[in-house]
C-alpha cells in the first residue's frame, strides 16, 4: 500500500502531504526533511526509486514539483509511477495545464482530487474522466452551499448595518 504522498518543490518547499499510515507530527517533519534531502539531490537522468527505511519511495519530477509516494518493499514501482502520472493528468485536466501556483492556491482541491484517486493507500479510480466528473459534482455541491452562505451573511450584514444606524 501507499504509506504517504508528498509534493515537494525543487526548493524543498512542501506543497502537499497526505498520510495513509500513522505518523506523528514530529515524524512527519522528520520524514519530509530526510526525503527531500534524499530526492532533491538526485540528478535528472537517474532512476525514480529510492530505498528508505526498508520502504521504497517512488518519485517523479514534473516541472518544478517532485511527486513522491512511499510504498512497501514488494509493491510495484512502475505501477506507482503510473499512479503519479495519472494524478498529474487528472490535475492537469481539472486546472487546465496545471502549474505549481495552482496547487499552492488550491491546495485543498489538490487534496480532494487525490482523495478521489486513492483511498486507504490504494488506487481507487483508474479512470480520469470519472474522477473529473466526481470532483465536479462535489464542487457544485460546495458552490451552491457557498452561495447560500454568502447570501445569508449578506442579509445579516445588512441587518446589522441597519441596526447600528
Amino acid at each position, binding site marked *: *500500500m501507499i504509506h504517504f504522498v508528498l509534493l515537494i518543490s525543487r526548493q524543498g*518547499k*512542501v*506543497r*502537499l*502531504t497526505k*498520510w*495513509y499510515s*500513522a505518523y*506523528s*507530527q514530529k515524524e*512527519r*517533519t522528520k520524514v519530509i526533511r530526510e526525503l527531500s534531502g534524499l530526492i532533491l539531490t538526485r*540528478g535528472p*537522468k*537517474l*532512476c*525514480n*526509486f*529510492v*530505498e528508505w527505511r526498508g520502504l521504497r519511495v517512488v518519485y517523479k519530477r514534473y516541472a518544478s514539483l517532485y511527486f513522491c509516494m512511499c510504498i*512497501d518493499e*514488494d509493491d*510495484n*514501482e*512502475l*505501477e506507482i*509511477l*503510473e499512479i503519479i502520472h495519472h494524478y498529474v493528468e487528472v490535475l492537469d485536466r481539472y486546472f487546465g495545464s496545471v502549474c505549481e501556483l495552482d496547487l*499552492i*492556491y488550491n*491546495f*485543498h482541491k489538490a*487534496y*480532494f482530487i487525490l*482523495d478521489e484517486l486513492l*483511498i*486507504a493507500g*490504494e*488506487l*481507487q*479510480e*483508474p479512470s480520469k474522466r470519472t474522477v473529473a466528473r*466526481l470532483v465536479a*459534482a*462535489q464542487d457544485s*455541491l*460546495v458552490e451552491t*452551499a*457557498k452561495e*447560500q*452562505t454568502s447570501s445569508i*451573511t449578506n442579509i*445579516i*450584514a445588512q441587518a*446589522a448595518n441597519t441596526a447600528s444606524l
Partner: protein
Amino acid sequence: MSGPSLMDSLFQRTLEDLIKGLRQQLIGEQAFISKALEEIRKEIKSPDLSTKSTALLKLCYLSNLHFHDMSFAAFHALEVLSSPRFSHKKIAYHAISLSFHDSTPVLLLITNHLRKDLTSTNEFEVSLSLQCLSRIANVDLARDLTPEVFTLLSSNKLYVRKRAVAVVLRVFEKYPDSVRVCFKRLVENLENYDPQILSAVVGVFSELACKDPRSYLPLAPEFYKILVDSKSNWISIKVLKIFAKLAPLEPRLANRVVEPICDLMRKTGAKSLLFECVRTVVTSFSEYESAVRLAVGKIREFMVDEDPNLKYLGLHALSIVASKHLWVVSENKEVVIKSLSDPDPNIKIESLRLVMAMVSEHNVAEISKVLVNYALKSDPLFCNEILGSILSTCSRNVYEIIVDFDWYVSLLGEMSRIPHCQMGEEIENQLVDIGLRVKDVRLELVRVARDLLIDPALLGNSFLHRVLSAAAWVSGEYVEFSRNPLELMEALLQPRTSLLPPSIMAIYIQSAFKVLVFCLHTCFVRGGSTAGVSASASYESFDDLSVENGAGSTVAHGQTCTSAPITNESIVNLLKLVELALSPLLGSHDVEVQERARNLLGFVDLIKLEALNSSGQEENDSEQKGVEATKIIRLVHDAFSKELGPVSLSAQGKVPVPDGLTLNENLGDLETICSDIELPSSNTFSFGYPSEEKDVSSFSNLQIKEDSGQSNESTSLLAEHRKRHGLYYLPSGKSEVISNDYPPANDPALQGDNNDTASDLVKLTAESLVPKRKPNHSKPRPVVVKLDEADEKPVAVKHPESRDDSLSGAVRDILFGSEDILPTSSRSNLPSSNRKGKEKQHMITQVESKENVVGDGNSSSRRRKDHSHGKERRHRKKNAEERNETDRKEKESSSNHPRRQKSRQRAEEPLKVPPQTSVIPDFLL
C-alpha cells in the same frame, strides 16, 4: 451581541488571503504564521460555522505544509462536522483525517457523526466519512461502525461500494471480529464484474494475503478466474501479488497458475505488469525452470534498457533470483559489473549487492580485487559502500568463505589504505577477531600490522585511527611472530603518535609494554644462561605454542633471533627510547594514557636498576640481582604470553551454579574473610609467586586485552585468595567441559590441569564446533575458532502481532469453518482436511444451484452466484476442475478419474483461446 463574530466573518481572511499573505509577507514567515494562528484561534471559537470552517481550513493548511500543531482544534473540527452543509463537512473531514490519531481525546465523540454520514443518502457524504474512517479507525470505531460498513458493502451505488470495500481492510485490521460479519460480503464482491469494485476487492485481498497468505488459499479459484479474465492491468498486478503469496503454500496451485502467468508475461505490453509477472515468477515459482528462463530473458531486457528505472528493477529482480539460481547472475555477470560504474548510485548499490551475491570461496579473491579497484575510483560514499559489503560478506558466518586468511588480512591492510576508507571500526574488529580466532594467520597479521604502524602518514587520517589501534594491539599481542620487534617498538613510540586520540594512545603504550617485555625476555631469559629449572615449565609451554603454529612460524621464530639479534646494547637503546617517548606523557590529561605510561616507565626503571647494570658489567657480583630481574621479566612475560581466546557471549551462563551456593545471599560475611588476607610481603613490587604463575597468567587472561602490571598484582592477590578460600569459588572440573559445548574460555583449573594450554582447547572446540565442511583446497583452510552461540546473531523471535493472529484466525474460521456458518458459500472453499468426502457432493449441488440462479437477477444479495453471465458456464467448469484436482488429494478414487480428465480438457479451453490481452486497452502504458 452577534457583533464581533459578525465582524469576524465579514473581514475574515480566506485561505487564499492567507496563502497570498504568506507569500508576500515582509515581517518574516514565522511571525506571519504566528499572527495568522492567533487569528485562527479566535475565529475558530466563533459560533458561525462558516467562519469556523474557514478558520479550520486555514489551520489545515498551516498544519499540513508548515507543520503547526492543530490538536487544539480537534473539538472545533467536530463542531464543524455537525454542520448540515456539505462544504463544511468536507473541510471538517479533511481536518480530522489530517490531525486525529489514536490518542485524540475527542475521538469517541465522532462515532455518531460518522454513523450518521455513513447512512446518509448523499453518496459524497458517505464517501467522506468512509475516507475518514479509513484513516482514523481505532478498535472502538471499527467495532461500532462495522454494521454500517457491512451494509455499504452491498450498496447499489458503485461509488460507495468500492470505497466501503477499501475501508474494510482497516476495519479488519483494527477489529478482527468484524471479519465474521463482513468477510462473506467481501468475497461476494470478488464476483462482481465491475472492474472498479473488483480492483478494490483484489487490492484488499492482496494486502490481507501479505500478512497471512494461508488463510486465503480457499479463495484461489476466484483469484484464478480473475487472473485469467482480467482486462485491467491494475487488477492483474494485484492478483499476481496474491498468487506470489499463495503459490509457495500449495504446489498444485502453483502448477495451475504458472502457465497463465507466463502467458501474461509473453503477451503484455505494459512494463509494470510485465515486471510484476517477472517478480512473481522469480519469488514464488523459482522451481519452474521454463518460467524462470522466460523471466530471466525479460530481466535481461530490462537490464540493458536505456531507462534507468527498468535497469534498476532488472537488477533488483536479478537479486531476487540470485538467492535460488546463482547461474542467472553469473550468466549476466558483464551487465552487472558494468552497472557498477553507472551514474546512478542506487543502481550501483543494487549491482554491488548482486556482485556480493556471487561471491563464493572460489572467487572471493578475484571479486574483492575488482571491487577494491572500483572503490579506489569511486566517490567516497560508494567507496565505503563497497568496502562495507566486502567486509560484511567476507566475515559472514565467521569468515566462512575465506580460505586463505593471509590474503584476507593483507586485503584488510590494503583496504584501510584506500583514501576514502571510513570503515576503520569494522576493519579494527576483524583484525582483532581474526587474530583471536585463526592461529595460523598471526604471522601475516603482524606483518600487516607492522606495515600500517610504521607508516607515519597514516597517523594523520582520523578514520584510520581505529585500524591503527587494532594494528598496535595485534603487534603487541603477537609480537613473537615479528621479524623485528625493535622496529615495532620504534613505530609504536614514534612522535606522530601524539595525533592519536588518548584511548588509542593507551593501546599503543600497552603494546609497547608487551613488545618491550618480549625483547627483554628474549634477551635475558631465552638468550641468557640463567634460565633455571623453575622457568622451564613456562618456557616449554611457550615453545609448544609456536610448534603448534606450524612450520612457518617456527621458521619466523628462528628469524627473529637471526635477523634482529637483540643485544644488550639494543636493549639499552630501547629503554632509552621508551623513556624519551613516554616521559612527556606522564603529564597527560588522560588518566588512561598517564597510568599506562607510568606503568611502563616504572617497569623500565626497575629493569634498568636491577638487571642492566649488573648483567652488563660485573656478572659475578650481582648474579643475585640479575636473577631477581629475570624472574620479574619472566613473570610479566608469562602474563602476556598466555593466549586470549574469543569468549562466547553466553560463556558465563554456561557455568553451572554449584550446589549450596545461593547467589542472592547477603555477602556481608565476606568481610570477615577479607580481613584475614595477609598481604604478600615479599617485595614492594610483586607480580605474584612463581609457584602460582599458571593461575596468575590465566587469571590475567580474564582481564581484557590490556591487562597492566597492576592488574597482575591484584590477580596474584586473587589467586592467593582463591587458594585459601577455594570453597567460595566455582568448582571447575572435567564434567563441566563435557556438559558444555564450549568450555568456559579461560577456566583456570582446566588450563592448570592440561599443561598444553589453550592450543588443545582450541583444537577441542574446533573439532566440535567448526562445521563438517572440509574444503579440499591445495592449501588447507586454517582452523577458525568458532563459538556456536555467540557467533549466531541473536535473532529476535518475531511473534506476529496478536491482532494479526486474531484477524487470520477469524478469516480461517469463516473460510474453513463448519458448514453451518456459511451454508451457501462453500463453493469458495477448497476442501480442507475435515471435509473430505462431502466435497464432491457439495460441488454438484453448487453447480445445480448455480444453474437455477442463472438469469435470476439480483434477487438476493445473500447469494453469491447472482452475477451469472454467459461466461459463467466456462468458469464453473474450471472451478469444478479445480475442485477435482484438490479432490484427488483427499481420496484417490478411480471413479473420479475419467471425469477429471474430461473436465481438465474443458478447462484448458479458456487457456487456449487466445487471451483477450491483445485487445485490452492498455491502461498502464
